[in-house]
């Protein structure tokens, strides 16, 4: 058993729903108890979909367990086929149905339905949402895609976009436009917008573009083996990666990359180089998300924004090796965890100036008073904007610049804050002037025990804050005043370091001299 407060990923059948909901003409019959229908609202509320997900739930109850739940599944399956007339069915069990072992796959395939039935085995007590999406897509491709004649013109499939993905809709539009400029035809986009019939013609493409390895890599590997289609490795997030992606697809397609490298609408490199952006230099950012987006964000932060990456991690273990390798390149140990409290403790410890994370890190940021830009699923309703807002391609690079800079205090304003720290209405607790709602870090923190919690958690075993807290060390009034002039995001660390330095040497009370001695000591 593992204690969980918030989860980054749902169970694997949610991943299957993300695939089914993205597609057309596919229906998912899910053996599940009453209550599992909550999953519909993820799509209709968070993503504002105007259709119900194409899922029928058997809705068994306690009284059914004594009788025949298998018959209930068969009846539900027959009714769903009759009502929705899909081109293909996927069938499976949610966590509870897995325990009653009715074998939905076996039941459904023996019913003699006139359409393909693809059974899904998604072990709920071992695996999670991304894996479920990947496995579902792979099973569909394996069941439906056939070797077929290649198109005459150079063409590719675009693999990976699903329902509830972070900016998948806009990334797809951006990449289709880019491929169009290169003269590469798009054969099938899947899962998003594809029907089961479309999947049968996947083999006609010359190669596959893998946009989201979390959902599409397994299927793409299979197609590489079974259909002889090479696949892309570059994820086109950021200016550099988009340029590399253009070269990669041009080479796979045997076309001239030049039209794809038209950068007339790319502003990010100049926005980042212009003098106003100097203040971004060395901003300390903590990056956490799914592996693909976290890796891309760290690269863009470091190479295209001039930030310092002070933390890097991912919640999906499937790609942990890549994240560990990248983190080592920044001189960091990667944080591979799906425990929200661990992430919160790591961020509190690193004291970054900004977080690039998921909706969970946005909450951590609110608690700790650190600005946050969202770069990865899981996301909430406000991360499905009405406007076109891709992460990928050259327009995606522009979007990254804007959205990452927005939460920060702007250049000269930052200097003024530093110079006139004691101005009663213009101080570092005021927050960025263009964000009226951004309340101060320290004022917004809840009173104890909440505020002390992250620190208490950082200590191994999570001992009680009241017992663990040592006697507060005495500071002279002058030293306290001086401490307040240190920027808030490093103030906690400065206080701890100074107190450690002072108590080791018996320099109590702490004076201004001690503060600067400690600063010099730890700076070495």
């Amino acid at each position, binding site marked *: *058993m*593992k*204690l*969980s407060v*918030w*989860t980054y990923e*749902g*169970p694997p*059948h*949610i991943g299957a729903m993300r695939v089914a909901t993205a597609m057309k003409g596919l229906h998912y019959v899910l053996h599940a*108890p*009453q*209550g*599992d*229908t*909550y999953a*519909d*609202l993820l799509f*209709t*509320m968070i993503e*504002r*979909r*105007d*259709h*119900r997900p194409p899922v*029928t*739930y*058997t*809705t068994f*109850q*306690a009284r*059914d367990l004594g009788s025949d739940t298998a018959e209930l599944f068969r009846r539900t399956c027959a*009714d769903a086929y*009759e*009502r*929705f007339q899909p081109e293909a069915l996927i069938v499976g069990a*949610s*966590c*509870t149905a897995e*325990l*009653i072992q009715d074998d939905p796959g076996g039941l459904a395939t023996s019913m003699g339905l006139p359409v393909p039935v693809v059974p899904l085995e998604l072990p*709920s*007590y*071992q695996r*999670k949402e991304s894996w479920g999406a990947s496995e579902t897509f792979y099973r569909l491709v394996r069941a439906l895609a056939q070797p077929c004649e290649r198109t005459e013109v150079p063409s590719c499939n675009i693999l990976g976009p699903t329902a509830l993905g972070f900016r998948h*809709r806009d990334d*797809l539009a951006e990449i289709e436009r880019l491929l169009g400029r290169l003269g590469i035809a798009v054969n099938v986009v899947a899962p998003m917008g594809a029907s089961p019939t479309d999947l049968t013609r996947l083999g006609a493409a010359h190669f596959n573009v893998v946009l989201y390895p979390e959902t599409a890599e397994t299927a793409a590997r299979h197609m590489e083996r079974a259909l002889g289609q090479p696949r892309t490795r570059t994820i086109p997030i950021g200016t550099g990666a988009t340029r590399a992606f253009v070269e990669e697809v041009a080479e796979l397609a045997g076309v001239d990359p030049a039209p794809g490298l038209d950068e007339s609408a790319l502003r990010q490199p100049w926005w980042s180089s212009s003098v106003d952006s100097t203040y971004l230099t060395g901003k300390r950012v903590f990056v956490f998300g799914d592996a693909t987006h976290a890796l891309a964000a760290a690269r863009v932060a470091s190479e295209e924004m001039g930030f310092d990456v002070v933390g890097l991690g991912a919640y999906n273990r499937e790609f942990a090796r890549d994240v560990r390798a990248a983190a080592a390149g920044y001189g960091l140990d990667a944080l591979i965890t799906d425990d929200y409290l661990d992430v919160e403790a790591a961020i509190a410890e690193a004291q970054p100036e900004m977080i690039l994370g998921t909706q*969970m890190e946005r*909450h951590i940021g609110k*608690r700790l008073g650190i600005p946050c830009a969202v770069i990865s699923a899981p996301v*909430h309703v406000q991360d499905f904007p009405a406007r076109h807002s891709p992460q990928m391609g050259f327009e995606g690079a522009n979007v990254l610049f804007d959205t990452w800079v927005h939460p920060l205090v702007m250049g000269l304003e930052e200097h003024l804050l530093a110079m006139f720290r004691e101005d009663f209405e213009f101080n570092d607790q005021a927050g960025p002037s263009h964000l009226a709602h951004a309340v101060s870090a320290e004022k917004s923190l809840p009173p104890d*025990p*909440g505020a002390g*919690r992250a620190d208490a*958690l950082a200590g191994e*075993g*999570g*001992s*009680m804050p*009241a017992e663990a807290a040592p006697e507060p060390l005495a500071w002279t009034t002058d030293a306290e005043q001086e401490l307040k002039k240190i920027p808030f995001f490093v103030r906690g660390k400065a206080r701890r370091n100074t107190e450690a330095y002072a108590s080791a040497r018996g320099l109590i009370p702490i004076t201004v001299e001690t503060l600067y001695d400690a600063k010099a000591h730890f700076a070495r």
Partner: protein
Amino acid sequence: MNEHAPLEPAPLEPIGCQNAPVLRERGQHEVFCGLTGIVWLHRKIQDAFFLVVGSRTCAHLLQSAAGVMIFAEPRFATAIMEEKDLAGMVDAHDELDREVGRLLERRPDIRMLFLVGSCPSEVIKLDLSRAAERLSSIHAPKVRVLNYSGSGIETTFTQGEDACLAALAPEMAYGEDKQLLVAGALPDVFEDQFARLFEALGVPVAFLPSRRSDELPSIGPNTSVLLAQPFLNETARCLAGRGAEILPSLYPFGEAGTTAWLRTGADVFGVDDERFEIVTAAPRARARASVAARRKRLEGKRITFLPDSQLELPLARFLTEECAMVPVEIGTPYLHRAHMAAELAALPAAVRLSEGQDVERQLDRLREDRPDLTVCGLGLANPLEAEGLATKWAIELVFSPIHGYEQAGDLAELFARPLERRSRLAGLRGKGPATPGIEPAAPGSGCRRTARACGGCP
């Protein structure tokens, strides 16, 4: 209670649907399970923690049902069972003891812990009552450990609160004082409003659940119970088992419901009409005025409730009596006739009642009825809006302040607002896709059957 009926003109239709036939359906239920109640219960009892013993699905539900994540660290969590718990490689009880130990160490402020059963824990027959007993003895006297089931195979949505409060009943001390006990988790602000009203009436009142676990009210043969929520069937049974008398009444929604409910409580304590009038006249007038301000937007509008919270019947009664709406179908997950007797008697005889759900058939009926407003769950709201049907999220009725006099206008407003919004935006909606990249929904598009077979398809 007729003398306390509202002073509105009586509807023309015959009243009283006690004997109306009830359409009972089995099929896909588009409802939450009982775990969802934790989202509000954990805020109500301030030193209690709710530990779901379940799967990743349970954790994901709690996080999604809350709509947004709760800013403060919530007083709930899920002990997620893993393969090794199920395969018998480890003893699930040992695992649970360890996780509870860690939890209580980290949260020394917790005085009451609920172990909440889920579908998977029920199916593998993990005995949480035994676990609660054992853990209580380990952590006594600091922490009391109780258990109840919020599983979807046994409970629907608000039945989770019912199961939780029922688990509290045996914990209440025995007492012989004559008192009124109000059962149901009410927001603190209304609890205070009701407390003031009963105090002014001279009625000694206590509330279940209490805000702190060590302040549970006493109970005994001189306790009279008023249910503040219509879904507390098991709680009522347990309180009756402790010797208390359950007072049947209308539920305190709207001016009439609140007046009848207060009167029921006051009668037990012999409050005379004059005193009752003095205490309630002003808030009654305020309630009537604030409902009247919304009435013109609701009058004559047809409304259907899909089954959700068991609040459907009392709310339909309020909307019919005080807002002149016309109920078309009232679906409820479960119909307890005894606890709903007064409500049924106040509803029009012609209304269609349904219990349980087959969501596809119910949506077929809905598309045929095309009411002006449909009260439904979050999974259905946007798809129905895209079909041109105005909706009201049922869950908001559980999460929002709607009881009593001072909230009667807000309650009417919850139903008026979606209609108001549609009329304001009447010129806006074109033919573009509501979800870009997806073709716009046609009426009845959830259904690919022929027009003949599906009443909703044009």
